[in-house]
């Protein structure tokens, strides 16, 4: 099956006060050699933007293929290794996931304001130094019993228009309905060569 069928496939993001209902397709990049594509253990152990190390497991996903592409491009640039020079075992496979659930809104202006972030977020909050601000917010959302949160992708360049184009969904895997893995693409099959 070609990746083309997913380029225009979007999950629906329905805003309802402080909640965003997500229903449909999300995406995620994992190393080609990974045998545990839906594992959140690494993020649990080492932490991420919305979870401190050892706090609770989180599965980070993107609303679009373009969002994942922007992420891996940033990775390559930030770490100084062109993707073509990564060992084939590490080159990113694209996962296509199906999810359904309600998550905390850390994406819209009102949602960002509610959690004490500026409406310009994530501008000014790039890099791991900013995690000292975002991880406590994630912990609060987790403590409030949410199954995850919807937020703005730090690799997007604008955050207007259809939400799937710029949104990321961080799933608290202990609580979130398990995403269903519906497809997996080799790096050469989904990333423009």
């Amino acid at each position, binding site marked *: 099956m070609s990746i083309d069928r997913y380029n225009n496939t979007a999950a629906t993001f329905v805003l309802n006060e402080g909640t965003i209902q997500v229903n449909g397709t999300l995406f995620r*990049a*994992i*190393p080609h050699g990974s045998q545990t594509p839906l594992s959140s253990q*690494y*993020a649990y152990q*080492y932490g*991420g*933007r*919305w979870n401190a190390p050892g706090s609770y497991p989180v599965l*980070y996903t993107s609303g679009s293929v373009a969002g994942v592409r922007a*992420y*891996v491009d*940033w*990775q390559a*640039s*930030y*770490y*100084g*290794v*062109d993707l073509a*020079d*990564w*060992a*084939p*075992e*590490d080159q*990113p496979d694209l996962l296509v996931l199906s999810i359904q659930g309600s998550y905390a809104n850390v994406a819209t202006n009102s949602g960002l304001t509610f959690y004490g972030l500026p409406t310009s977020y994530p501008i000014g909050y*790039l*890099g791991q130094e900013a995690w000292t601000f975002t991880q406590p917010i994630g912990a609060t959302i987790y403590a409030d019993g949410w199954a995850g949160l919807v937020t703005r992708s*730090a*690799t997007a360049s604008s955050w207007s228009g259809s939400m799937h184009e710029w949104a990321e969904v961080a799933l608290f895997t202990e609580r979130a309905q398990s995403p269903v893995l519906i497809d997996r693409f080799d790096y050469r099959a989904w990333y423009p060569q």
Partner: protein
Amino acid sequence: MANESTSELDLVLTGSRGHVQRWFEFKGLVVRGGATAFAGLQSFRAANGLVISVDPLMHRFEALANDVLHDDQKGLVSTLLHVELASVVASPWFGSSGSYTADVALGLTARFRVWISEVVEANDATDIHVAPISPRGHSAWRPVPSQAVSYVAAASMDRYSSELGLETQRYKLERIQSLLGLRPGEMTQLLDVSREGLRKWNAGFAIAPERSTRIDDLYNLAIWLATHIRPEALPAFMRRQIQALGGQTPLDWLRSRRWDELRRIYERAFSLEVSR
């Protein structure tokens, strides 16, 4: 026991492809998957897996050959097979039978037979019989790219040097320098040794244990990097100013002894688990 060993050697030297294959599979002398993974990915890391997958077979050949070789010839079998492994992968053996594992193992058997036949002839050992074997399906042969063959050669010699012990540090010095593309002056900085000291190490002089540990650490880091970044791209990477390293180069980080930190950063990068 001697009879069992002799009959095993006889099978290895004269048995059909099918008999030899059943023997090494029954004895557990090859690990399935390593050669197949290499055929698919053709990376340095996969080449390491391929070498490991047939290592028990190479050592079994070495043990069997001891019964028919003179004392001064016994150490050569392991050397020969580690050297020949890449030539097997580059030959029509690889991809000839539908099982890459069997192809490599049989190709090594063929190389082993050729060498033994030459040696027993030189030794006038007329009671040793050797039958040549060749691969099936020559017409369908698709050569492995030369770059991938070079990965197997390097991985095999890395493995051999770690098993051999003797001369290992000199080998490691060469590998560090070539993999990371380091100049002699940079080697002396990283290993905290004078140019004269490095020259003596390369000439085979003894290396103090604490210096030896540093060579081991740097060698392990170089091999680790080569399993994650294409080896041919590593020298340029080492001199690249990188945002994740605060605008410094990996070589700068090695100079400032941040070896473990550098590895941890790239372990995370290659896990694709770093959120921006």
